[in-house]
């Protein structure tokens, strides 16, 4: 399932593998950074996701700790923004196969929110 690929890429801090989980036309929104007085992230497109997380993974801007996959759309984890932890949920809102449980399915929309 794509949720497992997403979690594996996040934990490996592999920006290319992370981008590969997404459809070319996609959206990733992270509403957690404002909890630590940083700007929330609004990313549109696979390349933007790859570039953004390349930067964040390199400079400590984002780390996923202790992920617990809840179902094919949701993972519960601790998001680390430059050393400050936020208990978060990443939710796949849309994916290319509609159900997000088939091989080859790609994320079209993913939202990260405080848990």
């Amino acid at each position: 399932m794509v949720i497992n690929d997403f979690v594996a890429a996040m934990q490996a801090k592999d920006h290319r593998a992370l981008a590969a989980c997404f459809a070319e036309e996609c959206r990733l929104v992270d509403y957690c950074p404002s909890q630590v007085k940083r700007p929330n992230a609004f990313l549109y497109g696979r390349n933007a996701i790859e570039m953004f997380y390349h930067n964040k993974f390199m400079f400590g801007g984002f780390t996923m700790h202790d992920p617990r996959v809840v179902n094919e759309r949701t993972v519960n984890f601790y998001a680390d923004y430059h050393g400050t932890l936020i208990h978060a949920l990443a939710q796949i809102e849309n994916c290319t196969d509609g159900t997000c449980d088939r091989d080859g399915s790609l994320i079209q929309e993913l939202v990260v929110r405080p848990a």
Partner: protein
Amino acid sequence: MGIYVITGASSGIGAKTAEVLRERGHEVVNIDLNGGDITANLATKEGRASALAALHKRYPDGIDAMICNAGVSGGKVPISLIISLNYFGATEMARGVFDLLEKRGGSCTVTSSNSIAQGAARMDVAGMLNNQADEDRILALVKDVDPAVGHVYYASTKYALARWVRRMSPEWGSRGVRLNAVAPGNVRTAMTANMLPEQRAAMEAIPVPTHFGEEPLMEPIEVANAIAFIASPEACGINGVVLFVDGGTDALLNSEKVY
């Protein structure tokens, strides 16, 4: 054609900007430590005074543009040089030619950096530069600071420089002199060809969207064209702007900062 004065035009962005301006038929005067039309060390008060005196003698009827581009990156040079050249070498040269710019309704452009938007600058240092602006006192304060943290001071001077532009531009604009900043991303230079692996990895993690899939470095011509435009009369409506010339890096990392 206009008279364009540019500092630090013996290499890099400055040299390419001078080349672009000369190709457009302008008279270009390079003020640099080495190889300039006017040789001066803009990191010192004496050097700045001698350069300003030379300009006033050569162009008593005024100049069309001042481009304050001279600067150094952090890492290997003393912190004092970063502060004196990047901030005071720009602001004092700009102030010093204001009368010449006023005579011809000219413009002033300073070279900042897109690092100002990446959280590296120290706001206390930027505050001292903008609010206190006492060069001797600030230099005394940083005399024992390790050059290894130079990148922080680099970002701080460039942040202060951009804020100085924002603060001064309304008054200058009201007197017929436009004042703007360009904020380039990482630019290809002789130095970037010889980076250590860890330096290269860090550089590559500051993506340049318009160079996606390539080495994330701006070419000097990309920045030079922007400076040449914003300094020109074609940009007559642009004043007080910090123009990011980074292929979209700032938009990628700070999309919510619309204003």
